């Protein structure tokens, strides 16, 4: 009831009327095929008119059993597989896993490879956030931001493709560094290959262009009265929710929990760059939008610094032909676009891990959904779903 009171439209008298004229609620099955469930998510909602009284998310339609599949694959093969977990951020999925294996095997990736990882991770973050900027207003009925975001996402994906050869699933990391860049034939493979020609200039141009995109979005979406009316004060995640459910990433930072793995863990050399962690305190849909928009700007800063300070040297350290990972247990996490993604690897000394627990951000972020529903209206449900920015592959693994 509290969210309704804030909009000033539903008053106590209405509540008493609906008690007097009590009608049985309706069960509304939303999904698995529905325009705003971002894939195959099913929501079983109890609705009383427009009001959602309770909601249960049913997941598992995208369950591919990665934690079992990785138990029959060697480490190099796993990198290909985990690309598909969060398909909007294929590259970022690889990094924590590769870093974990590097730490277990005590192989260190060269500086240049580390910088390339930072650049590509941040590009992935921008492309994932641009996808959010396209889908979130669309769910609120505005279809034009989609076109602007997707157009400019193309500039980022083109750069990603020029380096890795892949737009969505680069499979670019190797234990001990990164793969030689795309397009290299067998003759050039022997040499230490570098980034494609013109990459730095093209990246700087992209950074400039994407700054313009952020300004466009400020004008088209951020200040839009209807957008504000739909998102302010809707679906409030409290810091307590963040801790209880393990909500991470932009969703947590929108609720005032200013934690970012990039600042706290040295999984990539983020300490060499100057960037801020945008946080908001309201925890509503608008805050989640604002944090993501601000994160694009910070990521652009990081890319600009990394590209212009790119150290020279090899792309990959010397790695044994057959990679055996010493026995041990390790957890390494990274800051993915959706939040904290981590791999708990248990190795028994072979070429295949004994167990890998994959901690994905969307899984925890989605679990909080029923808590945000009490008294929300059906249109709010769509706004909240959109603002949580989950990917079903990341939820179900």
């Amino acid at each position, binding site marked *: 009831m509290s969210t309704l009171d804030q*909009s000033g439209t539903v008053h106590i008298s209405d509540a008493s009327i609906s008690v007097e004229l009590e009608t049985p609620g309706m069960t509304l099955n939303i999904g698995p095929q529905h325009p*705003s469930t971002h894939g195959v998510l099913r929501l079983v909602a109890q609705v009383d008119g*427009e009001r959602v009284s309770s909601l249960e998310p049913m997941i598992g339609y995208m369950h591919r059993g990665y934690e079992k599949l990785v138990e029959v694959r060697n480490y190099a093969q796993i990198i290909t597989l985990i690309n598909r977990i969060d398909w909007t951020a294929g590259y970022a999925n690889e990094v924590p896993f590769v870093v974990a294996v590097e730490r277990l095997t005590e192989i260190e990736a060269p500086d240049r490879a580390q910088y390339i990882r930072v650049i590509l991770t941040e590009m992935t973050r921008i492309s994932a956030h641009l996808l959010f900027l396209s889908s979130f207003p669309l769910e*609120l*009925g505005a279809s034009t931001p989609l076109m602007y975001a997707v157009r400019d996402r193309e500039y980022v994906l083109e750069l990603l493709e020029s380096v890795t050869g892949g737009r969505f699933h680069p499979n670019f990391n190797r234990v001990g560094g990164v793969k030689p860049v795309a397009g290299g034939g067998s003759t050039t493979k022997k040499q230490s290959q570098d980034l494609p020609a013109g990459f730095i200039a093209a990246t700087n141009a992209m950074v400039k262009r994407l700054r313009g995109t952020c300004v466009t979005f400020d004008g088209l979406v951020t200040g839009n009265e*209807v957008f504000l009316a739909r998102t302010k004060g809707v679906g409030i995640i409290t810091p307590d929710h963040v801790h209880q459910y393990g909500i991470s990433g932009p969703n947590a930072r929108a609720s005032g929990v200013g934690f970012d793995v990039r600042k706290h863990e040295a999984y990539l050399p983020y300490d060499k760059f100057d960037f801020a962690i945008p946080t908001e305190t309201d925890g509503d849909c608008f805050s989640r939008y604002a944090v993501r928009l601000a994160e694009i700007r910070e990521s652009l800063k990081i890319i600009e610094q990394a590209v212009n300070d790119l150290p020279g040297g090899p792309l990959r350290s010397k790695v044994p032909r057959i990679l055996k990972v010493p026995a041990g247990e390790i957890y390494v996490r990274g800051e993915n676009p959706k939040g904290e993604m981590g791999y708990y690897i248990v190795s028994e000394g072979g070429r295949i891990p004994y167990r890998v627990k994959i901690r994905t951000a969307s899984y925890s972020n989605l679990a909080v959904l029923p808590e945000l529903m009490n008294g929300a209206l059906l*249109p709010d*449900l769509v706004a909240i779903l959109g603002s949580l920015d989950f990917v079903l592959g990341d939820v179900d693994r």
Partner: protein
Amino acid sequence: MSFAVLLTVKVLAVLGLMLGGALVVIYAELKVGAHMQNRIGPYFAGGRFGWAQPFADALKFMQKEDLVPDGADDRVYKLAPYVVLMGTIGVFVVLPLSPRFVARDLDLGAFYALAISSLTTLGVLMAGWSSNNKYSLIGGLRAAAQLIAYELPLVLAVVAVAIQAGTLSISGIIEAQAAPAFSIGELNVALPYILTGQIIGFAIFVVASLAELSRIPFDMPIAESELTMGFVTEYSSIRFAMFFLAEYAGMVSMSALATAFYLGGYQLPGLSATAVEVLGPVIFISKVFLLSFLFIWLRWTLPRFREDQLQSLAWRWLIPAALLNIAITATFKVVF
């Protein structure tokens, strides 16, 4: 001319006007929307500029299978699109394109137009109820709630116009706007009502007709991201096309009413009566398309309101504003 011939001509003219107007607006929606979004829009159909895209779409719809969902209320389900379309066509009967070019000039034209256009909501409610689909049902009920909330400011806005014009006939209202508002020496200047006191009324009328038409930012009865497609979720084939046509024909008819009530209809300031006689239809249709463009522009710019925010806007802002508008108009009418 015998009655039968005259009737046939009138029916054909009304249908032609409705279909022609709707097809042009559909094409404009595709093309204008595309350019607002950095796209090209229809390009191939018809050879140039994709001008035949609306026709191609209509043909495509006709070829689809006409599905009736299991458990649907068969007769109501099949009737609903006709009701919606009839409510829209009905308005065109009283639209005067020029002083003489009008199918039927009713004395209560404004009253009739507003009443018959409400029929579409009945059709929408029928579609939502009979589809045996919960999304359709919610969509239909939203449409009904929207009708109750927005019919009132719409009518109240027109009441002020009727007071100022002193008539409920649409032609009469347009003629009243030809009366000189002021004169500079010899020159009598006639201005449309939007410039002579009805600017608030015009704003209310446009907002309320957006809600009547279920267009963004008030497209909650359809709301494809919430209710898949609202009351049209289950429709296919030609019945879907009828809803589609009714939406755009409704846009033309609402724009035409706003043109007649506020923009001076077929009049243009400074044009002589004989010139109006000839150029009337062109002027009227240009104004209609200008307003339709405004509707399209809004649609590709704004997100969607929430149902309760819409109700709050109607009851807390538009209706009091409309009442105030009536009071002011009436005062001026009596005093001057």
